[in-house]
């Protein structure tokens, strides 16, 4: 077992990374950014496949993955925190979607 957990950053605009393995609280999570290794410390236990914030995401602003908004933060999310349904909500399915791009 390696000491560091691993995660995937999909786009330089993203403020979350996706864990390829479980990260326990206090573990450093390594991911590739700009060709080098970057680290984010997990502030709580987070399951594999789930997202961890690598920057602060202020309430009402977009969580970004794949270089695109995946939902709006419903609370301030600090770096290292689990980003999921308890603090991010979809902006779609309300009939008010945007189709202008």
């Amino acid at each position: 077992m390696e000491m560091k957990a691993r995660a995937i950053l999909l786009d330089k605009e993203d403020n979350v990374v996706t864990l390829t393995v479980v990260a326990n609280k206090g573990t450093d999570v390594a991911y590739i950014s700009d060709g080098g290794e970057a680290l984010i410390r997990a502030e709580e236990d987070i399951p594999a496949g789930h997202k961890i914030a690598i920057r602060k995401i202020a309430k009402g602003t977009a969580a970004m993955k794949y270089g695109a908004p995946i939902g709006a933060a419903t609370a301030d999310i600090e770096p290292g925190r689990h980003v999921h349904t308890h603090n991010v909500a979809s902006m779609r399915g309300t009939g008010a979607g945007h189709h202008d791009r």
Partner: protein
Amino acid sequence: MTDRATFLGYRRPDGRPGIRNHVFVAPTVVCTNAVVDRIARAIPEVATVTHPYGCTLDPVANEEMTRVFASFATSPNVHSALFVALGCETVEPSRVMEMARASGKRVELVTVQDEGDTELAYQKAVAIAAELVEEARRQEREEFDVSKLVIGLECGSSDAFSGLTANPALGLASDMLVDMGATMVISEITEYMGAEHIAAAQAIDEDVRKKVLETIARTEGELALIGPEYGFSDITPGNMLGGLTTIEEKSLGCIRKGGTRPYVEVVGYGERPTKHGLVMMDTPGQDIESLTGLIAGGIHAVVFTTGRGTPTGSAIAPIIKLSSNSGTFNRMRRNIDLDAGGILDGTKDIEDVARDIVEFVLKVASGKKAAAEINGHREFGLRRRGATGCIY
């Protein structure tokens, strides 16, 4: 892999070769399901479906049922077909027959109320089914160019790895097959919400771009009709356990399975593509409804990515499963054909898995059985009109 790849298929009167040679047997109405089940027990080689449809006061749904039943009979994978009618249903058997026989293949009808009762209808139908199976057995495979293949792209029971491993690998495989001249059909419009800008940019021209955006906007409008008080259930509990948070995140991963070639056409539910290349079909995200639409649209097989693992299949088309992670693959080895999990642990890259997919598709086209066929999965379900609350 050369540009002149071929597969061994079955010649059909309408020029669309099949990759299977099924005798398809189905009821035109729910009331005769038991007769079809009895035929399936007597002659295990027949490809049967049973269903809850065939009689409705909704004229639009009635038309769609009529068209989809006939389209299963005209599928290139079907050698010949037999329908068992009751005789009073709203889906008129004579119209199903007329549409199905336009393909030039043998399609038969047994009507319970004309025969007397279900026992007499069964005796007649089982004799016809046996005769069709005997005829099908005599037909041999011939060589066809890969450009004759029409392959569906689907994902179900997705997790957060689906968009990182299996879907990008399938997208690259889709590009490779399009470049070989094949047609790839992607569906599940609910899973474009949040990713429509990518699909729009991939449209071949302004007409297709408009149609892509209109189709997604209409679907989102229908979902909104469910009402905000129900909180628009945009993803499943399994998706969430697998790390997916919103429909936007799910969509951005889902559409990667379509690859990067231009969308050349948007077709309606169960409609046949008229162009070669990447085609979008208007279906809901629910797996069975989407697969039924794809198969009615004449696809030969589907490559279906899954994160948490799903066994589903079809009576007449191989549904090839590709897992997003090796944990699911190892747990569901009997249900899953290929694994993209090696991309996560670095033992494979996306290109390796894409090549595995193309190779497997060509093998399946020439007769190799997919896991869902071996396991006898024959799910069948029509889309529900209006809001579909269930998205896989």
